[in-house]
């Protein structure tokens, strides 16, 4: 059977993943990439648009040095950090990466040695112009014994498809705290893939807030390459309207004595759709692996939906692994308790929702970043609780 190519596929000259593919069953890009988004367009951004977007970052007052990308290109005049040429070597057959390999125009190349105290922010902004694809490819290397906090912020206006692929290497004894905030424009599509390899005795703390774009698909792969390492991969969804977010994580324990934790807290309002696919692989010989994942959804409306697909693939016998997923609405006893103390229903709900996502925010070590996200979350809540008392 010959499948008719969609307009977007013809424009791209490559095929898009669709629901018949196991990992893409909830996110059929043949349908969700609703029109052509021509790649490699050159758009000159107006300074005032760029300034407005820069100011709208939750981290406008938190970040240290920035590296800014405007419409897929490094903007030296807005960046305090110099950029290098990216040479990325991810060798995985994956649709987001394939698209990125075809269309990437630029990206961040960061090499960190020593301990960097203030957070580094990679800021990707897209200005309003004709619909288009913007693809960036980043490489982050935390050298042996180094430590850093890296913020990755995605902001934009208009209708576009953003494709972001990042390769991260955390060296022996190194530590990376990475906080990604996806606040793309309401009419945007966000596709990403983050491939992380962890050296011996390293620490990787990853947090992703997903609250923008109409369609999201975020892939993450963490490979343990050296013993004694620890990865915490967490995140929060705060979605409303008809937003769609699909996060797929693969945690690959290739060596013994490593620990992985995944925690996702997903708040969904209106007709939002959330998906969490988490797979933990324990390879042969990766004994003493301790791997746990959980996803929890809070559905604020009867039409919001959440699907979780946890998977364990274990080829070693001396391991502790587990997963859990829950989905439900607010606890009525909690609500009553708060209201019985004089807290009006809408505010009581906000407190409980904030407490729910707060459990994931609490995994962020950097206080300033955490505070900025709590502030963002309170703003989101004040916009999403109206009329729903």
């Amino acid at each position, binding site marked *: 059977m010959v499948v008719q190519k969609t307009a977007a596929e013809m424009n791209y000259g490559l095929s898009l993943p669709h629901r018949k593919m196991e990992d893409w069953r909830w996110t059929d890009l043949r349908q969700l990439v609703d029109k052509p988004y021509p790649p490699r367009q050159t758009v000159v951004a107006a300074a005032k648009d760029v300034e407005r977007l820069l100011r709208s970052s939750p981290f406008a007052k938190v970040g240290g040095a920035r590296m800014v990308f405007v419409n897929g290109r490094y903007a030296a005049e807005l960046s305090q950090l110099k950029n290098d040429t990216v040479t990325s070597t991810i060798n995985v057959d994956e649709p987001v990466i394939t698209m990125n390999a075809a269309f990437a125009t630029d990206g961040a190349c960061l090499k960190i040695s020593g301990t960097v105290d203030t957070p580094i922010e990679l800021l990707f902004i897209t200005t309003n112009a004709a619909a288009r694809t913007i693809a960036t490819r980043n490489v982050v290397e935390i050298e042996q014994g180094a430590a850093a906090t890296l913020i990755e912020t995605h902001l934009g206006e208009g209708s576009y498809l953003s494709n972001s692929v990042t390769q991260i290497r955390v060296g022996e004894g190194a530590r990376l705290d990475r906080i990604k905030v996806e606040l793309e424009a309401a009419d945007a599509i966000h596709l990403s893939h983050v491939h992380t390899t962890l050296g011996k005795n390293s620490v990787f703390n990853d947090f992703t807030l997903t609250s923008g774009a109409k369609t999201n698909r975020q892939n993450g792969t963490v490979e343990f390459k050296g013993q004694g390492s620890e990865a915490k991969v967490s995140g929060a969804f705060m979605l409303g309207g008809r937003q769609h977010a699909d996060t797929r994580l693969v945690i690959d324990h290739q060596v013994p004595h490593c620990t992985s934790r995944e925690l996702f807290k997903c708040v969904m309002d209106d007709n939002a759709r959330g998906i969490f696919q988490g797979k933990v692989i324990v390879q042969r010989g990766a004994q003493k692996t301790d791997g746990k994942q959980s996803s929890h959804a809070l559905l604020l409306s009867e039409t919001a939906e959440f699907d979780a697909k946890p998977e364990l693939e274990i080829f070693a016998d001396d391991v502790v692994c587990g997963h859990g997923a829950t989905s439900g609405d607010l606890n009525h006893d*909690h609500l009553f*308790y708060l209201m*019985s*103390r*004089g807290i*009006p229903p809408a505010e009581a709900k906000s*407190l409980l929702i904030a407490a729910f996502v*707060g459990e994931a925010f609490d995994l962020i070590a950097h206080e300033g970043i955490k505070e900025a996200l709590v502030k963002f979350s309170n703003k989101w809540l004040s916009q999403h609780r109206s009329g729903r008392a």
Partner: protein
Amino acid sequence: MLEIKNLHVKLADEDRVILNGLTLSVKAGEVHAIMGPNGSGKSTLSYVLSGREGYEVTEGSVIYKGEDLLAMTPSERAAKGVFLAFQYPIEIPGVATMQFLKVALNSQKKARGEKELSTPDFMRLVKERASKLNIGPDMLKRPVNVGFSGGEKKRAEILQMAVLEPSLCVLDETDSGLDIDALRVVADGVNGLRSPDRAMIVITHYQRLLDYIVPDHVHVLSRGRIVKSGGKSLALELEAKGYAQFESEAA
């Protein structure tokens, strides 16, 4: 302050009747004790007064300070001064105790058109009230009731009461799970709140609490209605003879 007349309450999604013609009148400044066996409807009464969902009033009325209490939402009732110290205070993970108390107090003040408290003033108020109840800063740092022992939970309820300064306090088995020292602390806290313009309904299964919080009136609740009322000596009589005599009277 409170006029409950011929109150009939059933479960909202079952045909079971729990309160069956309960009548009670409470004036400002008074302390009323309601005693009764397990399952007689004491907690149900407290929930109906505070507006919990799941109960349906089929007959009767509750007038509070001249207004129809049953027409108000739970938070409106609280803002007008109704407070329930829960029999089983629940844990709310992720909601900090101090934040909760501050939002509660200022929501009430806002609803009443009063000036909200600044953070330093609020902190001072809580610290002062907490120290009287032997509640230290470590307890206040935790999320609402999370990890509190049974006794700590009861003290925390009284702290909330002391901070919110309600006009009508309903205490549902505040004595249960308390050893004698904790009971004294709680009773001192409650007695400290007695005032001519505040009324209290003290629900208890045992008369022990009433040695410390001495009531003006004692009522026996059995099968959803008050079957006997009297002075504080009634509590002693109950202690000696048990509830059995009233079970048959109510039947």
